[in-house]
């Protein structure tokens, strides 16, 4: 069996067994090395090719395609895979029948499944990637290089959408935990009251 396949982050463990083992063992080593790798890979490729292209002449069109596609793949991977693997969050933007937006947030209830080191490794690249493209775009805007500005705006929009989605999702998760705690407290109070009567 393959040690780490991209389709299975926990090799050789069934869902139930894996989860039990996870919640018992609290270690700081990354549990999803494949997810961490892909979380960083496309981001680094996009930025590296973008910066290298000003030193090595590989042509504007090729750079444009590589950077845009890397950003698009990164958007997909971050939105659909690494978010739920690394921090247990996922956001959707659904369309209602009347055409209005509907944000849907998913989050794991058991916070102990989220590894703090992985959480950092998730949030810092997401933040840095969006911030990086914003800075690049500002530089190009004042340098009047409008062709590059197009690339940077595309990448910034993709990175920014993910950042926004996950910030909203994290806020929603916090609210849910709070709501659950409150209902738990209310529940115990009611139970105690019933027991006394």
């Amino acid at each position: 069996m393959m040690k780490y396949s991209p389709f299975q982050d926990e090799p050789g463990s069934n869902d139930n067994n894996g989860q039990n083992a996870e919640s018992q063992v609290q270690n700081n080593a990354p549990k999803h090395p494949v997810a961490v790798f892909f979380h960083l890979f496309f981001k680094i490729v996009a930025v590296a090719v973008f910066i290298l292209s000003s030193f090595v002449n590989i042509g504007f069109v090729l750079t444009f395609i590589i950077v845009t596609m890397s950003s698009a793949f990164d958007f997909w991977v971050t939105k659909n895979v690494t978010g739920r693997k690394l921090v247990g969050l996922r956001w959707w933007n659904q369309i209602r029948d009347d055409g209005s937006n509907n944000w849907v947030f998913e989050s794991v209830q058991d916070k102990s499944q989220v590894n703090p080191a992985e959480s950092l490794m998730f949030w810092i690249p997401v933040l840095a990637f969006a911030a990086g493209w914003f800075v690049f775009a500002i530089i190009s805007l004042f340098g009047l290089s409008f062709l590059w500005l197009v690339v940077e705006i595309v990448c910034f929009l993709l990175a920014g959408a993910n950042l926004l989605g996950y910030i909203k999702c994290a806020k929603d998760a916090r609210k849910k935990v709070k709501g659950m705690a409150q209902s738990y407290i209310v529940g115990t109070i009611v139970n105690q009251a019933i027991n006394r009567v």
Partner: protein
Amino acid sequence: MINSESPNTLDEPVFQTILRDLKMVAFKLYHVILPRGNAVNALRDWDLWGPLILCLIMAIFLSVSAAEDQKALEFTIVFVVVWCGAAIVTVNGQLLGGNLSFFQSVCVLGYCIFPLTIATIIIWVIQNLSIIFKLPIVGGAWFWSSFASYGFLGSSVPDNRRLLAVYPVLLFYLIIAWLVIVQ
């Protein structure tokens, strides 16, 4: 302890995630080629993969046939025309009281450049095609694009304003078609 009404996809295998999105893209492309009645379902899950890839393919083929010092410009112009054009047409549709969300509409307009992308490739493959042959190919693709997008967008705008909404769509594809012809 997860709400039963919200979808629970946090534990799904990555393979399944990829497959679902690929199916979605294929389903929409199919609907563009054969515009049919139940387009509303295809629309609800919008994505920008199709538009991005179709637009990049078109931009690549158009820039390849451009002069050496104009490749970068040509490529960027195609890219910007497709995305900004789609955004402008969308805003116009919304101002006219359309009930599609922004990304849904951009998604539809982007997917519907598919025939024009095919026309671009055909013209590129058969080099040195004279304008007599180019015109019907691109014209047909233009009609097809407009027809497919009308099937998606037409019902979203109130009846009495439909022409006002459709006209910019025709213009949008006409500009792209013109870019294809002058390659």
